[in-house]
C-alpha cells in the first residue's frame, strides 16, 4: 500500500496509553496494518551491572527489573544462587517465601487489572484496584519492612519471621479481597461496555500462542495449561492444592478473567500456607552458625547476615532456575567463575516473551484496541528491557 494511504502513529513514550515505550502503528483508516513496539527505553543493563556486584548485592538489583512483582524475581534469582551454592532453605523459610510470592502475585495482578481498566477508560477500576492493592502491600510491608522492594529472600532462607498477628490480618485482607472481586464483576468485568470493548479483541489462539512463545496468564487465557508451579514445582508448591486457571477464548477479556481466577487461587493458597506453616529456623544452619550468637534470630524477629554475605564465593559452575512470576515464566541463568562476582548473569523475563504478542494480537484491529490489548497483556516495560 502506498504511503499516502496509510498513517503512521507514534504512540509514546509520552502518551497516556503507552507506558515506558513507543508503539509505532501504521494505520489504514481505523485499522492497524502494521504494529511495532519500540522497546529499550528502560534498558538499564541489569545483567551487565550484575557482573560488577557481589552475589548478595544482586538481590535488590533483580528486583528493580519488575517493581510490582519483586518477590518472584527475588525468589527466582535466589533459587539459582542456592543451586550454585548447594544449600537449601529450611521448610519454614520456604513457606514464608511462597507466602510473600503469592501476596505479591495478588497485588501485581491487581496492578495489571487497574492499568487495564484505565486503558479502556474506567478510572474507577484503576482506583479500586490500586486501593485494594494496599492491604496486600501493607501485609507485605509488615512481613518484610518495605512497600514494594522487599529484598526479603536471601540465600539460605528469608530475612524476617512472621510478625505477630500476621495470620489474623492476612485472613481479614483475604476475605476483604474476595468480597471486592464481586464489586469488580459488577462495575467492570461484566459491565456491558467492557464486554463490548474486550470480547473478541486481540485474540491469540492456542496454536499461535504456543508458536510465538507467550507465557504466563496470557498463555493460559489461550487454552494452554502451562504453569511452572505445576510442571516443575519449586519450594512448597507440591504441598499446596491449587488449580491452573485456563480459558479457551484467547481474547483480552479471557486474559482479564484468568488474572481474576489466579487472584482467587492465590487467596486459597495463602489460606493453606497460613494453616500449615511449620515452626523452625528461617535461615540455613550453615549461615546461622556464622552469626554471632547474641544477634541470632531466636532473640529477635529478623536474621542477621553473616559477614560472609559481603563476599559469597560459590564454586565454579552454572545454575538455572525457573519460577512462575505474576506475568509468566521467569528464567534465571547464573555462571560463576569462583570469584565474588558472577561471570555471567542472564534473565529471561516474562514481559519480554509477551512482547511479541502485541504484534500478533493487534494486526487488523482498530486503533482503540491498542490500549485494550496493551492493558490485557499486563506488559511491564522495565521487566522486558531489564
Amino acid at each position, binding site marked *: 500500500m502506498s504511503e499516502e494511504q496509510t498513517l503512521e502513529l507514534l504512540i509514546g513514550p509520552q502518551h497516556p496509553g503507552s507506558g515506558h515505550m513507543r508503539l509505532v502503528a501504521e494505520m489504514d483508516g481505523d485499522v492497524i496494518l502494521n504494529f511495532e513496539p519500540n522497546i529499550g527505553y*528502560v534498558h538499564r543493563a541489569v545483567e551487565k551491572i550484575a557482573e560488577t556486584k557481589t552475589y548478595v548485592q544482586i538481590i535488590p538489583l533483580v528486583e528493580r527489573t519488575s517493581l510490582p512483582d519483586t518477590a518472584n524475581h527475588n525468589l527466582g534469582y535466589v533459587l539459582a544462587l542456592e543451586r550454585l551454592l548447594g544449600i537449601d532453605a529450611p521448610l519454614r523459610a520456604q513457606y514464608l517465601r511462597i507466602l510473600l510470592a503469592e501476596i505479591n502475585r495478588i497485588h501485581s495482578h491487581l496492578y495489571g487489572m487497574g492499568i487495564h481498566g484505565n486503558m479502556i477508560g474506567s478510572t474507577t477500576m484503576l482506583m479500586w484496584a490500586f486501593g485494594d492493592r494496599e492491604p496486600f502491600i501493607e501485609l507485605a510491608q509488615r512481613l518484610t519492612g518495605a512497600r514494594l522492594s522487599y529484598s526479603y529472600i536471601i540465600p539460605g532462607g528469608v530475612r524476617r519471621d512472621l510478625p505477630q498477628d500476621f495470620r489474623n490480618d492476612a485472613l481479614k485482607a483475604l476475605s476483604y479481597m474476595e468480597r471486592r472481586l464481586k464489586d469488580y464483576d459488577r462495575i467492570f468485568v461484566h459491565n456491558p461496555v467492557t464486554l463490548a470493548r474486550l470480547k473478541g479483541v486481540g485474540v491469540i489462539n492456542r496454536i499461535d500462542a504456543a508458536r510465538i512463545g507467550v507465557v504466563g496468564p496470557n498463555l493460559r487465557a489461550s487454552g494452554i495449561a502451562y504453569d511452572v508451579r505445576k510442571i516443575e514445582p519449586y519450594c512448597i508448591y507440591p504441598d499446596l492444592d491449587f488449580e491452573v486457571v485456563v480459558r479457551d477464548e484467547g481474547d483480552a477479556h479471557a486474559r482479564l478473567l484468568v488474572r481474576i481466577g489466579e487472584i482467587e487461587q492465590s487467596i486459597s493458597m495463602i489460606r493453606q500456607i497460613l494453616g500449615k506453616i511449620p515452626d523452625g529456623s528461617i535461615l540455613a544452619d550453615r549461615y546461622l552458625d556464622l552469626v554471632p550468637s547474641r544477634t541470632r534470630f531466636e532473640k529477635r524477629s529478623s536474621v542477621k547476615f553473616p559477614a560472609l554475605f559481603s563476599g559469597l564465593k560459590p564454586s565454579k559452575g552454572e545454575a538455572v532456575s525457573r519460577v512462575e512470576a505474576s506475568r509468566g515464566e521467569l528464567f534465571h541463568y547464573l555462571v560463576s567463575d569462583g570469584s565474588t562476582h558472577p561471570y555471567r548473569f542472564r534473565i529471561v523475563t516474562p514481559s519480554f516473551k509477551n512482547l511479541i504478542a502485541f504484534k500478533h494480537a493487534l494486526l487488523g484491529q482498530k486503533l482503540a484496541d491498542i490500549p485494550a490489548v496493551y492493558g490485557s497483556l499486563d506488559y511491564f516495560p522495565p521487566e522486558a528491557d531489564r
Partner: protein
Amino acid sequence: MFDAVIRRLSRALARQKILSSLKDWGTSFSLWPVHFTTACCGSEFAASFCPRYDAERYGFLPFVGTRQCNVLFIEGTVTKKMAEAAKIVYEQMPEPKFVFAMGACAIDGGIFWNSYNIVRPHEILPVDVYIPGCPPRPEAILKSLTMEQEKIRKKVTPHPEN
C-alpha cells in the same frame, strides 16, 4: 507599536502583587503532572493517586497532554534513549513548569549508578525537588508536593544551584 504597548501593559499587570499572588496561588494548587513514565517508580507514582493516598487532594491531577501540564515527574531511572524524550517533553510544556526527580535513580543513579545507559536528570533538566528512596513512599511524593507548593507561593529561588 500596538504589540509593544500590549506587552508592556501585560508585564506591568503581571508585576502587580495581587495578580502575581493570585497566579502563584492558582499554580500551586493546580500542579498537573504529565503522563511520562520513565521507569519503575511509576508504580509508586500511580499508587500516590490511589484511594489510600489520593494526591488529587492537592489539585495534583495527572493529565494527559504535554501542552496542558506544568509538572514533569521523572519517575526513576532516565536512560539515554528516554533522556531525549524527557527533554522534548520538557520543552513542549508551557511556562511556568516544574521538574520533580523521584527516586534514587533520578538523583544519582541509585543501584544503577554504574550502568552505561543512564543519565542523571539534573544534568539535563532543572530539577526543583528531589525525592530520595527506591521507590519513595507515596507519602514522600505528597511531601514533595507540599514543598513545591510552598516554594511557588513563597518565591524561594527556583534553582539555587544554577
